[in-house]
């Protein structure tokens, strides 16, 4: 009998390999199955809303008329949060990774990470008790001086519980996510590329724009997307801070609502069609998040050739 000495014969290493690849495959499938299950659950439970008589849906004009204002409210709150948190987060991360003395950088890093661990109800309470009243004078000023812009149309809220306040609270909540992730990526910039820039006579800032930021770009986008995920889905802080109402363009008057807060505030008393409505709102939020992530992927993929991975 001839045996091929090169043929594998059931060694231990092989078994380990099989177990690991099986486990990895299982984990991958589990994620997809969970996502699918969530989507199916939301769709089935929401179905009555789409088939119901439009006059019976909250507002009396059908589901689209009901959901449209709160979708816009959600997007406005998240957009405000990201507009504030992205530049600040990147700046703080750059300071920690490239400017601060090493000892200060480590301490600052811990503090930022700690911010992410604070429960959202605390942020909500802070926004409600401290930030909102403190913002009232600024809102007053905005309405008096920039009132001609629809975004700052008066009369300003006397409690400060507006969508702008909610957006600022969300920005503070999102900040640690963007900062910690960006910092990790900035620190991974190859020394080689930083030295290439410096050796050409680049200042520290030029070195950052030439080698650190381009290298970190996909990572920054991912960080912002994670932050956006939290801003879109945040419930407690918005529910506490925002004094809700119909869709209005002004950011400094009471009004607007977000999907997550709408669901949380109404869920305990909802039944029948109302429950289906809220779940349908959840489905819409799910779709928004999915679309946003797909767009982010597309942005990253478009620059693949220049990513340095080839």
């Amino acid at each position, binding site marked *: 009998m001839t045996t091929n000495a090169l043929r594998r014969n059931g060694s231990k290493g092989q078994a380990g390999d099989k177990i690991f690849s099986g486990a990895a495959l299982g984990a991958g499938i589990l994620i997809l199955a969970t996502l699918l299950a969530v989507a199916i659950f939301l769709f089935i439970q929401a179905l009555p809303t789409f088939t119901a008589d439009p006059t019976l849906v909250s507002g009396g004009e059908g589901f689209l008329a009901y959901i449209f204002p709160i979708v816009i409210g959600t997007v406005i709150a998240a957009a405000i949060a990201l507009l504030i948190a992205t530049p600040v987060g990147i700046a703080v991360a750059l300071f920690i990774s490239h400017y601060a003395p090493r000892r200060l950088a480590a301490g600052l890093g811990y503090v930022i990470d700690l911010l992410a661990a604070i429960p959202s109800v605390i942020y909500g309470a802070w926004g409600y008790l401290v930030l909102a009243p403190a913002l009232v004078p600024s809102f007053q000023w905005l309405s008096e001086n920039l009132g001609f812009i629809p975004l700052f149309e008066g009369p300003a809220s006397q409690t400060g519980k507006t969508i702008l306040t909610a957006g600022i609270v969300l920005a503070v909540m999102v900040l640690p996510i963007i900062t910690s992730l960006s910092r990790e990526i900035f620190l991974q910039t190859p020394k080689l590329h930083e*030295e290439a820039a410096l050796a*050409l*006579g*680049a200042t520290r800032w030029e070195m950052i724009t030439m080698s650190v930021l381009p290298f970190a770009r996909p990572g920054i986008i991912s960080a912002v997307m994670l932050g956006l995920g939290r801003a879109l889905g945040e419930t407690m802080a918005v529910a506490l801070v925002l004094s809700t109402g119909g869709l209005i363009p002004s950011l400094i008057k009471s009004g607007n609502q977000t999907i997550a807060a709408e669901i949380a505030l109404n869920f305990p008393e909802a039944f029948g069609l109302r429950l289906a409505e809220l779940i349908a709102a959840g489905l819409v939020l799910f779709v928004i998040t999915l679309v946003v992530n797909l767009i982010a992927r597309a942005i990253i993929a478009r620059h693949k050739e*220049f990513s340095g991975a080839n």
Partner: protein
Amino acid sequence: MSKRIDVKDLNVYYSKFLAVEDVNIEIEAKSVTAFIGPSGCGKSTFLRTLNRMHEVIPGGRVEGEVLLDGDNLYESGVDPVTVRSQIGMVFQRPNPFPTMSIKDNVLAGVKLNGKKISRSDADSLVEKSLRGANLWNEVKDRLDKPGSGLSGGQQQRLCIARTIAVKPQVILMDEPCSALDPISTLAIEDLINELKSEFTVVIVTHNMQQAARVSDKTAFFNIAGTGKPGKLIEYAETATIFSNPAVKATEDYVSGRFG
């Protein structure tokens, strides 16, 4: 365009550790000077002090003077950014900016410090620099493609093009061929010979044949043992170093008896 470098009583430290001790050397303008020596002897560290790149490593500092045509690089008030724009550097591993096209890589240093350059000037500078680096014919049809798509040898020549585009006085090369195959190495060595007509070139190399082939003068560095500072042992015409060195350690090293 090219200046001489005089180093006087230079000690290089990393925090409290003395890495290179008491170097005195005069490097002529428009010449190629090679630094050779065993690993860890401080030749790369010393090279980096010539354009203040060693300061990038935390704790890196020097005592002594490095004079570029008489101007001390380490005088207070001298900005390392200015120093590095006059004394360029090519590294051991090719490091083109991966997110930039070939063209943008060449112009990277030129556009620094808020300098503007017209499109036609930019195009002619790109061509001139790439020709100067013997790379033009290979890349002229794909200037907008990423620099990271080139072969290792081409990337290294792109880095040289990027360095000469800023018109430095001196070009420092830190083992520029150690990551390259023999043919790319030959291309770089030919290039070094051409660069000599315009620039002062200082090259660190592990390869003694390379030092013998490309350099006019050679400096031999050595250390007495681990943890001891590196020292400049002998500095002379390359032919003298390789055929008739004055110091026994140099002879042992170039004849392959150690290192």
